[in-house]
C-alpha cells in the first residue's frame, strides 16, 4: 500500500510539470497582453513594461525563469496589481476559498447522501420523486442563477442574510448553499443509483433471505457498499468546489482566490494565471490520490499492489 501511495504521489510532479508547460505555452499563444486597455498605452510605455517584466525575452527563457521562481516558492509579481506579489494575493485569498469549498462540501455530503438514501429507500414512490425532482432542479439550475435567487429572496426580500462579503458566520450561509446546490444534487443522484444497484446485488438478497431485519440490512451492507461509487465522485466534487467557486465568489463579493481563476485570464495576469493553474492541478491530482486511498479503505475487495 505504501509503495502504491508513494508512487502515486511521485507521479503528481510530472503531471504538474506537463500542465505548467501547456498552460504557459497556451497563455502566451493567445493574442493580447497584460497592458491592454481601452485607452491605449503609449507604445513606448508598453515596451518599457514588457522589458521590466521580462516579456520581451524568448518564451522558453520566460518559462525557465518562472519555473525557477516556482520551485523556490516565489510565484512572481502580479501583472495587474503592480504593487503586489502573487504570493501575497494567494495567501490573502486561499484560506477563504478553501473554507468556502470545505463548508459547501460538508453541506453537500450531509444533505446529498441522506437525500439519495431517502430516494432509494422510497424507490418509485413519493420520496423518490421528490428527491429526484430536487436533484434535477439542483443540476439544471446554473450556480449563478441559484446565487442571484438566494440573494433576492433571502437578503433583499427577507433581510435574513447579507448580500455579500465575508465578515462573519452570517456571511457564510448563502454562498455555501449556492455553491453546494449542484454537488448536493449530483451526490444525491449517485447515492440513489448506487444504493439501488446494491439492493439488487446477490449478497443483499442473501442477507434478506437469511431473515435479517430490513434495517440492519440497510445500515450494514447497503450503505457501506453504496458509498464506494459515491467516494469516486467526491473527488472531482471537492476539486470543483475549491476552484469552481469563482462564480459564487464574484456574485457574493467574497475575497477568495476563486475570482482570480477567471480574472487572470481576462487581464492576462500571467503569473497569477500560472499560480491558479498550478493550484487547481495540484488540488485535483492530490484529491485523486486521496480518493483512491479511500476507495481501498472502504472496499475490502480492492487491494493495490
Amino acid at each position, binding site marked *: 500500500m505504501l509503495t502504491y501511495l508513494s508512487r502515486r504521489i511521485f507521479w503528481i510532479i510530472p503531471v504538474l510539470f506537463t500542465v505548467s508547460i501547456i498552460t504557459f505555452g497556451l497563455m502566451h499563444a493567445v493574442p493580447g497582453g497584460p497592458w491592454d486597455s*481601452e485607452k491605449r498605452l503609449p507604445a*513606448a510605455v508598453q515596451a518599457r513594461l514588457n522589458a521590466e517584466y521580462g516579456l520581451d525575452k524568448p518564451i522558453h527563457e520566460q518559462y525557465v525563469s518562472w519555473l525557477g521562481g516556482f520551485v523556490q516558492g516565489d510565484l512572481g509579481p502580479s501583472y495587474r496589481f503592480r504593487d503586489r506579489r502573487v504570493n501575497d494575493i494567494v495567501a*490573502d485569498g486561499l484560506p477563504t476559498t478553501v473554507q468556502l469549498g470545505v463548508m459547501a462540501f460538508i453541506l453537500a455530503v450531509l444533505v446529498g447522501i441522506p437525500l439519495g438514501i431517502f430516494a432509494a429507500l422510497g424507490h418509485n414512490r413519493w420520496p423518490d420523486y*421528490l428527491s429526484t425532482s430536487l436533484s434535477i432542479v439542483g443540476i439544471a439550475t446554473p450556480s449563478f442563477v441559484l446565487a442571484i435567487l438566494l440573494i*433576492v429572496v433571502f437578503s433583499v426580500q427577507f433581510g*435574513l442574510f447579507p448580500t455579500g*462579503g465575508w465578515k462573519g458566520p452570517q456571511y457564510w450561509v448563502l454562498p455555501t448553499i449556492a455553491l453546494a446546490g449542484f454537488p448536493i444534487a449530483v451526490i444525491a443522484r449517485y447515492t440513489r443509483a448506487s444504493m439501488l444497484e446494491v439492493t439488487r446485488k446477490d449478497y443483499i438478497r442473501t442477507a434478506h433471505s437469511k431473515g435479517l431485519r430490513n434495517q440492519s440490512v440497510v445500515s450494514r451492507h447497503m450503505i457501506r457498499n453504496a458509498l464506494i461509487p459515491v467516494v469516486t465522485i467526491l473527488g472531482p466534487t471537492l476539486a470543483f468546489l475549491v476552484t469552481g467557486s469563482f462564480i459564487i465568489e464574484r456574485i457574493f463579493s467574497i475575497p477568495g482566490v476563486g475570482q482570480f481563476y477567471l480574472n487572470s485570464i481576462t487581464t492576462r495576469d500571467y503569473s497569477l494565471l500560472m499560480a491558479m493553474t498550478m493550484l487547481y492541478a495540484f488540488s485535483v491530482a492530490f484529491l485523486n490520490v486521496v480518493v483512491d486511498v479511500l476507495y481501498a479503505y472502504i472496499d475490502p475487495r480492492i487491494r493495490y499492489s
Partner: protein
Amino acid sequence: MSQKRLLALVGALAIVASACGGTTASAPPSSGEPGTSASASAEPSTGLAAEQTVRIALPGEPPTLDPSPAQDANSLAVLRALHRPLVYINEKLEVVDALAESHEISSDAKTLTFHLRDAKYSNGDPIVAQDLVYSWKRLADPRTAAPYSYVIAEVEGAEDLLAMAGADPAPSDADVEAALDKLGVSAPDDKTFVVKLATPATYFLGAMTLWVFVPLQEKWVTSPDAFEAANYVSSGPFMLDTWDHNSQIILKPNPNWYGDVKPTLTEITMPIYAEPAAAQAAYEADEVDIIMPVASEDVPRVKDDPVMGAEFVSDPQLSITYYNYNNGNDATGKKKLARCEDAKACPTTNKNFRIALSQAIDKQAFINATFAGLGQVANSFVMPGLPGYDESLNPYPFDLTAAKASMDKAVQELGYASAADIPPLKFGFNTGGGHEPRVAFLAEAWRQAFGLQTDQIGSEFSVFLTQRTAGEYDISRNGWGADYPHTNNQLAGLFTCGGGNNDQQWCNEEFDSLIDQAAAEQDLTKQADLYKQAQKIMVEDAASLFLLWPERPALVKPYVTGLTKTPMDSTSPGEHFYETMQIAEH
C-alpha cells in the same frame, strides 16, 4: 412522471414567484453596518445625523493606489480623495487653484509659476515644491512606465524622456538621470514651483488637474509597501485607513487637510462589488448607500419603484458612445491598410457607404432600446459643456430615404450590384461588457434598411482590442471618457493621423493642422472656433458613427446630501469632492 415534472416546475415557480412579488425595499431589517436605518423619513431632515459615515460601492479592486502609474477608474475613485494637485476642477469644470494659492502664466504662455499655500501631508510633513519636482520627474521617468505619462509631453525636456521609454537598448540610469535634470520643472524655494513648457499649450492647465501631478514625498514612495494602508501618506481631504484587498477600502478624514472645506464625514467605506447585480442587491438590502452605475437592465424597474424611483439620479457625463468605421489607413495614418488596398474588401472606406450607415440609425430609438432611454443623442464628438461643442453640427440625420440613396451611390462606386451582395461586414465588440444588444440593434437596423449582412464578432476584451487596433474590423464598438475637461483631450490622439487612440483608422491633414493651431491659440474664443472647424471636417467625413453622450445612472440614499456632482463622476456622484458630502438626520 407528470407528478415529478409538476413538482419540479412548482418548485421553480415558487422561487421565482417570491422574487416577483414585490421588489420594493419594504423596510426589511437592515443587515450589515449599524447606524443606517432602512426607512427614509417622511419630513425633510433638518439637521445632520450623529453618525457621519457613508458606504459607496466600488466596482472592482484598484490595481494600484500609486498616483503616478494609476489609470484604472477604480484607482482614480479613491485617489481623488487621497491627493490633490496644484490646480483642480470645481463643479463647473473650471480650473481653480487648489494646493496652489495663486499662479501666474507668462505672456508667451510657456512659463507657469505656482505659489504653494501652507500645507501638510497626513504624516505632518510640510508639502514643499521639491515634492512636486520629484513627482513630475517620476511621471516622466521612463522607468516608472506610467500610462498617463504622455500628458507631460508639453513640458520642456519631456519629449526626450518619453522617447527613452521605448528605446532599445534601454538607456542607462545615468542617461535617464541626466535627461530628468533637463525636465522643465524647478522649485526656486519651498513654496514656488515653476513649469516651463516647450510649446504654449493652452490646455496644459486643464491637464494639470489630473491625479498624476500631485506632490509625492520621495522617502514615502520609495519605502517598502508604501501603498498599503499602514504606510500611506496623503495630501488630500482623506487618508487611507484600511485596504482589505478585494474586499473593501476605508477612508478617514485627513487631519492635516489644507482645503477650505473640511470633511464632515468621519468615515467612507468602499466595499468592492465585482458583480453589478450584487451591488444592486446590496443597495436594496440597505447595505450600501450609493451605487453607480445602475445596470441599464435594472433602470426601468428602479425608476418605477416607489422608493427607489425617488432615489434614482442620472446625470450627463463627459463621455461618448461611438462606433468606429474602418477608414482604411494603417497605424501611421499615411498608408492604406494591406487588407483595404482594394476598396471593395473594405466598404467602409467609401464615404457614401459610411454616410448611408449613419443615416440609417434612429439614435433616439437606439438609446431607448439599449440604454434605458438615458443619454443625449450625439451627432458629433465633443460633449456639451466643452468649448468646441457644436449643437448644430448634424450633417447626416436619421433618414431612411436619404440612407438608401447614399447606399445606392456607395454600392455603385464600390462595384457591387447591391448592398445585399456585399460580403458580411465584420462587426467587432468585446463580450462581457453588455454590448450585445447595442450591436444587435445596429446590425438589425442595417439589415432591414439595406439587406446588409454583418458578422457580429464578440471577442474577449484583449483580443478585441488587438483586432480593433490592427484594423481587422469594419465596424467596432468604442467609447471615450474625458480625462480632463478640455477639447484637446477629446480630439487629439483620437482623430489625428496615427493617433494613439485613433481606432477608426482615419487621417486628415487639415484636421491635424487645425488641432495644432487650436492647441497653441491663446484666445479662448478663437480656440473654440478652431476646434469647431476641425470637428466639422471630421464629422462631415463620417469618420465614425456617433451615437450618444450617455448619462450615468446612480442610486443614492436620500440621507446622503452635500453632493458636489460633476460630469466626470464615475463611481459615485460627487466623487471629486467627498469633503462636501454629508449625512442628514434620518
